[in-house]
């Protein structure tokens, strides 16, 4: 496998022995990707900036395919996102990247190393913020950091110093000696991030960093993540919030049903898969098909989506559409013009809404 010679320390690894990691030609057909995939091995060998590289990454649980042959490359310094609804396979992918879940099929390298052979060495350079915090609630805030740092072979004094620094970063210094249990959800999340940073990781994996937090706590978190990115930490995150993806990600893949359905920067995705503007129209009743049929928008509407509670009209000229809708005999309750978002991209790609 790739780069095994550069492993810093030999290890007795605890991963199951019955897992075979096989290379296979990815089944995706978009020419450029597939071509790059075939040239994959020599390329990552010579490109140390590709920190994570996966080809045909597959995870099955029994007969169920949770991750269905995905290809990704994450470069140093990038903020890379997986956007997808519940059950899309985001956590399953993150666990494989975190080297705690053996691949069913495909290949994966991190820092040019093979997770099966070099798990401890790889994990030593990762920070992991799992979907569930997994904090020890009976230990104090500081103790959670002290304990964790030791797992990375750091001396007590180094860990103590880093803990203080990270508590400041996570704005938890004044709670340092309090038990974790009574902290708010946002504080626990920040502590989990602080813990993941104890080894000064090169890659930070964040599985739904802000799910379940209130808007203010989310903004505090985004700000911290933004700073990390400025410091050169490579961020890999999953989310089912389009605003989070837009805020944080340089590049993202949209996942659905275990597959990647689109890839690009948030801006690119919106340009490629949606119109410039969207007009949201609500009516007093929820039988929306007839309302759509009676609208005569001609070339103005690129596409009309019927959601359970509203119509979405995709257009290059929102104001023009909004005037026509307003004057239509069906009298809508509200008409709202807005810019296209990743939500619209997702709807276009999957026919379903992210939130649903």
């Amino acid at each position, binding site marked *: 496998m790739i780069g095994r010679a550069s492993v810093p320390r030999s290890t*007795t690894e*605890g*991963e199951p022995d019955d897992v075979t990691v096989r290379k296979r030609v990815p089944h995706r057909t978009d020419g450029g990707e597939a071509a790059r995939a075939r040239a994959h091995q020599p390329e990552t060998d010579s490109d140390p900036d590709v920190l994570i590289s996966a080809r045909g990454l597959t995870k099955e649980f029994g007969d169920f395919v949770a991750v269905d042959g995905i290809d990704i490359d994450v470069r140093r310094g990038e903020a890379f996102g997986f956007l997808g609804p519940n059950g899309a396979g985001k956590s399953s992918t993150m666990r494989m990247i975190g080297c705690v879940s*053996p691949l069913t099929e495909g290949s994966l390298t991190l820092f040019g190393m093979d997770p099966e052979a070099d798990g401890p060495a790889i*994990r030593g350079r990762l920070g992991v913020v799992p979907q569930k915090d997994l*904090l020890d*609630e009976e230990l104090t805030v500081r103790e959670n950091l002290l304990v964790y740092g*030791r*797992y990375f072979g750091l001396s007590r004094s180094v860990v103590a110093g880093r803990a203080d620094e990270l508590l400041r970063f996570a704005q938890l210094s004044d709670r340092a000696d309090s038990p974790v249990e009574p902290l708010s959800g946002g504080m626990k999340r920040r502590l989990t991030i602080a813990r993941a940073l104890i080894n000064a990781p090169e890659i930070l994996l964040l599985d739904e960093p802000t799910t379940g937090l209130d808007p203010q706590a989310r903004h505090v978190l985004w700000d911290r993540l933004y700073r990390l990115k400025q410091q050169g930490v490579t961020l890999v995150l999953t989310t089912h919030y389009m605003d989070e993806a837009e805020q944080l990600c340089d590049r993202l893949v949209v996942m659905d049903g275990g597959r990647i359905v689109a890839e690009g920067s948030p801006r690119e995705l919106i340009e490629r898969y949606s119109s410039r503007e969207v007009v949201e129209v609500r009516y007093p009743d929820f039988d929306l098909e007839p309302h759509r049929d009676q609208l005569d928008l001609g070339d103005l509407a690129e596409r009309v989506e019927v959601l359970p509670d509203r119509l979405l009209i995709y257009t290059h000229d929102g104001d023009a559409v909004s005037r026509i809708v307003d004057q239509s005999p069906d009298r809508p309750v509200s008409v709202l013009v807005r810019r296209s978002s990743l939500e619209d991209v997702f709807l276009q790609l999957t026919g379903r809404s992210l939130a649903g």
Partner: protein
Amino acid sequence: MTTTTLKVPPLGDFSRSMAALEYWLRAYRRTWRSSAVTAFVMPLVFLGAFGAGLGSLVDTDRAGGLGDVSYLAFVAPGILAGAAMQSAFSESTWPILSSRKWNGHYHAQAASPLTMPDIVTGHLLFIVFRLTLGAVAFVLIGALFGAFGSAWVVLAVPAAVLTGLAHAAPLIAFAVTRESDTDFSMLVRFVMTPLFLFAGTFFPVSQLPAAVEFLAWLTPLWHGTQLCRGLSMGDAGLLGSVGHLVYLLVWVVGGYALALRSYRKMLLS
């Protein structure tokens, strides 16, 4: 990285196992006071009730086929081994389930450079630590009661710890696979308590019907009680003691291998 099932399981990287142990010691700081009190009160209660209380009856009537030996001298090493087993049951069930399901610390450990052998070894080292505290306290109190006829009783401490570990290793392998703690109370009721009562703690298993006596020989606890008793009374035969030792070690190694397997299955899915 290809292993056959017969290969001796890896013990993990020692410094990483120690880091895992450190976590458990830090968590223990929170409860050490009450556990220390228990460690000293438990032998007082048992030695008082069985050694001094019941013992006075047994010794007067020369019942139980113990010959010249006082009941206190007979029962003390038995309880030492039995208490180690009991302690192994409580340390190897609820905390294991909690680490996987409730606080999830095992998953946090698995995301760090720690490997499954590190995680398992680290936790077992902590259980060894707890067993050692219990056994030392028991031998100190027992000595105050005058329960031991030989200075070899010092070696009964590691013997009792090994007895506990022979139970702990297979128990953690089982506990980590559980989804709730209901099985643990069944385990205590139907496995631990009968073992404690019938595996040579309170009376020689030769008093049992032949078929049951044979079953008792199979239990690691019986080998533990015999080993501790030989050492504390100073009449341990070398061959017999080595036999008990080896039998207990088989349970430790077998349990460890099973633990690695079930930890991998549950934590690396």
